[in-house]
């Protein structure tokens, strides 16, 4: 965002847009791919959370539990079939996230390239 500067926002203000309009029509569209990328990475990190939840929130079943912790509980209860099912689900989610991440990464890369090309054109 810092790299993009504030000129577009200023242009929107001069044209009579208020703060919300400037944010939703100008700022957000410009940062959307970067933002989405952040959300996906954050989500992936949250899905795999184990230690912190186990220690801090007490891993109460059905309330404050994560998938990896659930796998542990099931395993300790000797319900292997359920444990492996949840583990597979987790692995599947990881694959979905990976695909989503690659798509978004490709998209934001494209936008960066377009911006770069634009700025090169400008400076020539």
């Amino acid at each position: 965002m810092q790299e993009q500067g504030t000129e577009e926002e200023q242009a929107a203000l001069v044209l009579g847009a208020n703060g919300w309009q400037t944010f939703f029509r100008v700022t957000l569209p410009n940062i959307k791919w970067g933002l989405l990328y952040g959300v996906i990475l954050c989500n992936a990190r949250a899905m795999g959370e184990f230690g912190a939840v186990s220690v801090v929130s007490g891993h109460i079943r059905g309330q404050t539990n994560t998938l990896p912790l659930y796998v542990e509980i099931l395993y300790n209860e000797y319900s292997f079939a359920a444990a492996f099912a949840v583990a597979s689900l987790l692995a599947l989610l990881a694959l979905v996230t990976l695909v989503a991440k690659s798509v978004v990464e490709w998209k934001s890369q494209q936008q960066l390239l377009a911006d770069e090309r634009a700025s090169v054109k400008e400076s020539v």
Partner: protein
Amino acid sequence: MSIEVQSVRKTFGDFTALRDVSFQVPKGELVALLGPSGSGKTTLLRIIAGLEAADHGSVLFHGEDATDRSVRDRQVGFVFQHYALFRHMSVFENIAFGLRVRPRKLRPSEQEIHTRVHALLKLVQLDWLADRYPPQLSGGQRQRVALARALAVQPQVLLLDEPFGALDAKVRKELRRWLRRLHDEMHITSVFVTHDQEEALEVADRVVIMNEGGVEQIGTPGEVYDHPATPFVYHFLGNVNLFHGRIHEGRARIGEIEIEAPEHADARDIPAVGYVRPHDIEVTRHRNGTAAIEATVSYIHLIGPLVHIELTGCDSGNLIEVALSKDRYQEMKFQEGERVFITPRNLRVFAQGSQAGAGEGLAKA
């Protein structure tokens, strides 16, 4: 709508960007703020637009104080140096933006927006580009889209920050003529910032020359070029020759030449500098009874419509530049190394060291 700037001051930390700048722009005029980089011209433009707040002083639109009005309520059109087009919107949407963000009551219908945007695109001669995106346009095209976007909200005042700064020389020349024509059609009060003196003198009705945060001179292009008020303006607008001398009781003495300098009547033998434009110097082979400065021709440059001759002053050893018409040169046929006599036709004397001590005197030739 007329613009009035009253003793505006602005500092950034220790740096004084503007010091008590005042000037007026009458309704419908095209005014250039001209100055070297760092002279505060862009800051001044941003203060007029409301993008920057002045530390002191006020900005009046149409005689009304607009200092505390927000950017949105000032009804100005602003064209940014690097255009600041919305890169995720098509050209059409860029221009329509100002209309679409209006409160629902004031917003024109979709149909009306469509006709207005297309009228503007026609005006800037780009109606075939409506669906393109900014990164796909050339610099000159982007510039015109930025202008159309600024005009879409029907501003009372148009402000342009170095409008042609990022373009190559040819496109620049075309665009500035086009801007001049556009201004003559629309008569919208406009202020543009530039560091290119040629651009300012060619396009503007009036020029405000700025240096180090202050105004040096305000006048029509003819006035500022022919009658510079300060040494700075002399240096900034075109080439100039310097002759060192002294002033004493209203008379300046430069070499053999003596001229009246009535505004320095109370000066007691102080050092002074005479300023002469290269085309205001007469070169002769013989001393024809008048006081003249002796010099040697050191170099003759024949390219272009004028012949430029470099001379070396015999007393001072200073370099003197003279511009002659081709006809005059053909008539005289000066040779390199030749001894000649020069007399300035239009010499202006400033006391040395004083920027403000302006005075004028014509050489008695």
